[in-house]
C-alpha cells in the first residue's frame, strides 16, 4: 500500500504542477499572456487573390511526403468542383469557392502558435517546433483522436482503416526541408507566388504592406495574425474570410487559454478537498458521538426516572397494603369482638368490657 500511495501522491503532484510549469516548446498550460511565437520561426503567406487553382502545390506535397497516388491525377482540375478536406493521405487541398469570379483557397494545417492539437494531446505526440512547424511523433500516439476534436480548423486526419498502426496525419510544413534551409514543397512549386515563405514577422509586415498598397484588392485583415492566438500560416483575401469558407468566429484566445481554467482548478481540488472532507468526517463523527452521549444520558435519566417512579409507586402500594392490612386487621378484630359479643349473652359483662 505504501508504494502505491506514494505513487498516488506523486502523480497528483505531477498533475498539479505540470500545467503550472508551462514549458515552452510543448503546448503551454495555463497561459496568461499572449505567445507571439518563436522568434525567427518560419511561416507561409497564402495570398488567395493570386491563387489560380492549378493544384501544383498539391502534387508537390504528395511528392515531398511520398504519399500514395490519388485516384485522379493532379492535372485533372475537375476535382475542384467538389468540396474536399484534408485526408489520411492528402495533406493539403485547394478548393474553389463558388462565386461569380472563381476564387481558390488552399487548406492545410495552419501550424498554430499555440496549437489546440498539441495542447490536447495527452502524450505530447504533437509539438510546436521553434522552427515553426507543428510535428507529429508516431511513436507516441495512442490514437485517441482528441487532437482532431480540438483542432478548430478540422485539419488532422486519421487512418481509420489501419488495424494495427493507424496514424494521425497532417501537413508538416515540410519540417525536414525547413531544417535543411529549404522552402516547403508547396511554396517551392507555386507558379504564381500565391504562396511565399519567410519568418512570421517578415510575412506579417509584408502582408500589411500589400493591404496598404492595394486597399481595393484586399480586405483589411490578415487571417492567422490573431485567430486562435495566431498561426504560422497567414492568409490575404479579396473577399471577407467568411465568404471563402474560413471561420471568422474562432476568436483570438489560444487553445491553452480555453482550458487553463479547469486545469488550474486541479491543485485547488487536490489541496482543498481532502481537508474539507476530513472536516466533514470529523463533524459527522463528533455529531455521532454527541448524539451517542446524549442518548446515553437520556437513557440514564429515563432509567433513573422510572426507578424513582417505581419506588414511588412501591411506596404508595406499600402504604395501601399497610392500610388495607390494617383495615383488614381492624375488620377481623371487630368481627371477632362482635362474634365474641354474640356468643356472650350477658349484657352486664359486655358493658364492662366496653
Amino acid at each position, binding site marked *: 500500500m505504501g508504494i502505491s500511495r506514494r505513487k498516488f501522491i506523486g502523480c497528483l503532484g505531477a498533475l498539479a504542477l505540470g500545467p503550472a510549469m508551462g514549458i515552452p516548446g510543448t503546448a503551454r498550460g495555463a497561459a496568461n499572456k499572449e505567445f507571439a511565437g518563436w522568434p525567427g520561426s518560419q511561416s507561409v503567406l497564402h495570398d488567395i487573390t493570386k491563387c489560380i487553382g492549378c493544384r501544383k502545390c498539391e502534387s508537390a506535397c504528395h511528392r515531398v511526403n511520398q504519399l500514395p497516388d490519388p485516384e485522379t491525377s493532379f492535372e485533372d482540375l475537375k476535382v475542384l468542383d467538389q468540396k474536399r478536406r484534408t485526408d489520411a493521405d492528402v495533406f493539403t487541398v485547394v478548393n474553389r469557392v463558388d462565386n461569380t469570379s472563381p476564387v481558390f483557397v488552399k487548406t492545410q494545417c495552419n501550424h498554430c502558435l499555440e496549437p489546440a492539437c498539441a495542447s*490536447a494531446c495527452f502524450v505530447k505526440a504533437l509539438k510546436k517546433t521553434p522552427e515553426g512547424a507543428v510535428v507529429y511523433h508516431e511513436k507516441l500516439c*495512442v490514437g*485517441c483522436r482528441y487532437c482532431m*476534436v480540438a483542432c478548430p480548423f478540422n485539419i488532422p486526419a486519421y487512418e481509420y*482503416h489501419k488495424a494495427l498502426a*493507424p496514424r494521425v496525419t497532417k501537413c508538416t510544413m515540410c519540417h525536414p526541408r525547413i531544417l535543411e534551409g529549404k522552402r516547403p514543397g508547396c511554396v517551392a512549386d507555386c507558379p504564381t507566388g500565391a504562396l511565399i515563405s519567410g519568418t512570421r514577422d517578415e510575412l506579417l509586415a509584408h502582408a500589411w504592406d500589400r493591404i496598404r498598397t492595394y486597399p481595393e484588392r484586399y480586405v483589411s485583415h490578415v487571417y492567422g495574425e490573431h485567430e486562435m492566438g495566431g498561426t504560422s500560416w497567414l492568409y490575404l483575401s479579396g473577399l471577407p474570410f467568411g465568404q471563402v469558407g474560413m471561420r471568422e468566429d474562432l476568436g483570438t484566445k489560444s487553445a491553452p487559454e*480555453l*482550458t487553463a481554467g479547469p486545469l488550474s482548478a486541479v491543485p485547488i*481540488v487536490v489541496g482543498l478537498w481532502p481537508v474539507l472532507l476530513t472536516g466533514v468526517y470529523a463533524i459527522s463523527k463528533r455529531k455521532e458521538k454527541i448524539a451517542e452521549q446524549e442518548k446515553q444520558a437520556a437513557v440514564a435519566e429515563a432509567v433513573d426516572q422510572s426507578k424513582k417512579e417505581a419506588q414511588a409507586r412501591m411506596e404508595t402500594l406499600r402504604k395501601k397494603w399497610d392500610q388495607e392490612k390494617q383495615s383488614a386487621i381492624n375488620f377481623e378484630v371487630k368481627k371477632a369482638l362482635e362474634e365474641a359479643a354474640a356468643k356472650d349473652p350477658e349484657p352486664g359483662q359486655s358493658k364492662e368490657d366496653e
Partner: protein
Amino acid sequence: MTDNGTHADRKWWTPFNVIVGIILATGAVLTVMRFTQGIGAVTNLDNNNAWGLWIGFDLLCGVALAAGGYVTSAACYIFGLKRYHSAVRPAILTAFLGYALVVLALHYDVGRPWRLPYPIFVSQGTSSLLFEVGLCVFLYLTVLFIEFTPAAFEWLGLKKIRALVVKLTLILTIFGVVLSTLHQSSLGALFMIAPSKLHPLWYSGYLPVYFFISSMFAGMSMVIFESTLAHRYLSRHMDDTHHREAPGVALGFAKAAAFVMAGYLGIKLIGIAIDDHWRLLATGWGMWYLVEVIGFVAFPALLFAMGVREKNLKFVRWAAAWTVLGIVLNRLNISVIAFNYHLPSHERYVPSLMEIGTSVFIVTLGIVIYRFITTRMPILHEHPDYSAHSPEQKRI
C-alpha cells in the same frame, strides 16, 4: 422470481441466457472485425467526427453513471449516514465494473490500445485535460478495486487481509471523492477546447461544473435504479438489512437528488444568463435544449420531490430511471448531437449498427459479471462472519 433463479442456475436455455448468448457472440465477431480491419470497418467515424458513440456513450455516460460509487461511500463514510451502509457495496461494485468497462470500451475506440498506459508512464501531456481524465480514471479504478476487495476476501475467507483493507476505508473514500471530482469535471472540460464546434447552448465555461454536479445526481439515480432492478431479479440474494434499508436509501437519495438537480438547474440558468444566450432558446436547437433541461432534469426532479413527500417509492423509481436517461441524453448532446452542429447534414455523424452493437455488448458484459459476482459474493447481503457491528465495521 424468487425460486425461478435457483432453476436458472441449472437450466441453460433461459430467455436471459439465450439473449445474452446472442449478444456476446455478436460482440465477439465485432471485436474480431475491429481488431483486424481497423476502427473504420465497424464505425461511421470520419475525419470531421473523430469521436462517436464509443466516447459519447461508453466513456462519458459510463463514467457519469458509475458515480454512484463515490456518492454512496461519501454519504456513508464521510457524512456519517450509516443508514446507507447496505447500499455501499452494490454501488462500489457497479462503479468498479462501470470503470472497468469504460477502460475496456476505450480499447475499441483508441487506435493503439496497447499504448493506453503511455500518458501515465511514457510521455505525460500535462497540458491536456484528457491526461487528467486518464490519470484519474486509472487511479480511481485502482481505488475502486481495493474498495471492492473486502467482499471478495470475505467470499474467499481471507480475514486478515480483509481487516487490513477495511481499515483503509476512510482514506480510500476521500481519495475516491477527490479523484471523482477531478475526472468527472474534466470530462466536461474536454470540450472546452472546441468552442467553435459545440453548440453555444451546451458550450459554457461552466462545463466542468455541470459535469461534476450532474454526476452526483446521476450516481444517486443509478443507485436507486439499480437497486430496483436488483430487488426484482436478485431478491433472493438480499438479507433483511438490505431489504429493510432499501426504501430508506431510495427516499434519502431521492431527496438529495431533488435538491442537487434544483441546484443544477439554477447554475444552468446562470450559465445561459452569463453568456446571454436567451434568444438561442427560441431556435430549433433551443427547443432541444429545453427538452433536455426541462423534460429530463426539471421534471424528474419534481417527481423525486413528490415521491419523497408522499413516501411513494414508485415515483422515486420512475424519476431515477428518467434521470438516468436524461444523463445519457446530456452526454450524447455534448459529445455527438450538438457537437459539430455547424456541419451540413451529410457530413454529420450517425452511429453505425455495429457501433451500437459493440456498446450493447459491453453493457451486457457488465450485467453478466454483476450477476456472477452478486450471486456469489456478499454484496447484497452481509457475510455471516462480518456483521455490521463487528469491531472493524464500527470504526468507520
